[in-house]
């Protein structure tokens, strides 16, 4: 059962405030994913206090540290069910978990952060891991 939208709204805004586009429908997801060029980060947001509470600030810190993906999008697990299911279909080889993060380069999944690598960590630790992946995959080539 989805949470009260009033509870979730600040968690949505935590992502949109740092440049993420919310994908609310399967059509939104397809539209975002069909643009194959460059790099894209998709964050599966979540209410879960054990992990998402550190995932969102972790993403923010990572984006402040170094190279950024060309495009940023987010879906909300347990809330926007259709959009989440469609987003997961683009990284179907990964077991579903939330929160989680999927980094794409030219339409290919190049890095995935499952929930268990977020939970119990600090925002700084989450940021460090993600920033490394962004450095590896999103830095401009000489």
């Amino acid at each position, binding site marked *: 059962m989805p949470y009260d939208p009033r509870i979730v709204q600040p968690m949505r805004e935590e992502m949109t405030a740092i440049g993420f586009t919310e994908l609310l429908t399967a059509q939104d997801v397809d539209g975002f994913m069909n643009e194959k060029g460059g790099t894209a980060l998709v964050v599966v947001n979540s209410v879960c*206090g*054990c992990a998402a509470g*550190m995932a969102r600030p972790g993403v923010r810190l990572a984006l402040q540290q170094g190279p950024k993906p060309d495009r940023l999008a987010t879906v909300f697990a347990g809330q926007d069910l259709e959009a989440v299911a469609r987003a997961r279909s683009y990284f179907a080889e*990964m*077991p579903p978990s939330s929160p989680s993060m999927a980094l794409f380069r030219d339409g290919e999944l190049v890095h995935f952060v499952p929930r*268990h690598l977020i*939970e*119990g*960590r600090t925002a700084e630790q989450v940021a460090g891991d993600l920033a490394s992946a962004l450095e590896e995959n999103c830095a401009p080539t000489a």
Partner: protein
Amino acid sequence: MPALSKRIARRPLDLMGTFHSDKGELHGITVVVDTTGDSVYIGRCWELNDREVVLLDLDEHEEGRDGRSKQEFVRQAAKVGIWKKRDRLVLPLAEVASVTPLGQISTD
């Protein structure tokens, strides 16, 4: 399973931001529960107390099934996560050899 500590891992509560602090320090955390027998379970810890561990949304493996050891199963799960096979499991602590956050398992 050398990567798994015999002791029950402890994490600082203030880093987790859980909503159910009465369920133990691992509430909400994905853990590997190794047993004294052939089975190993990986799932979200709902509760860990002095009698039992309760897991939700878990996967399980038995030593040697599909040609995989428990260690191989755990190592693979540490890389990508698990595919949920069961909704819930209550395991008496007497059958538990260790409880370790999956995020602490080395993937090397």
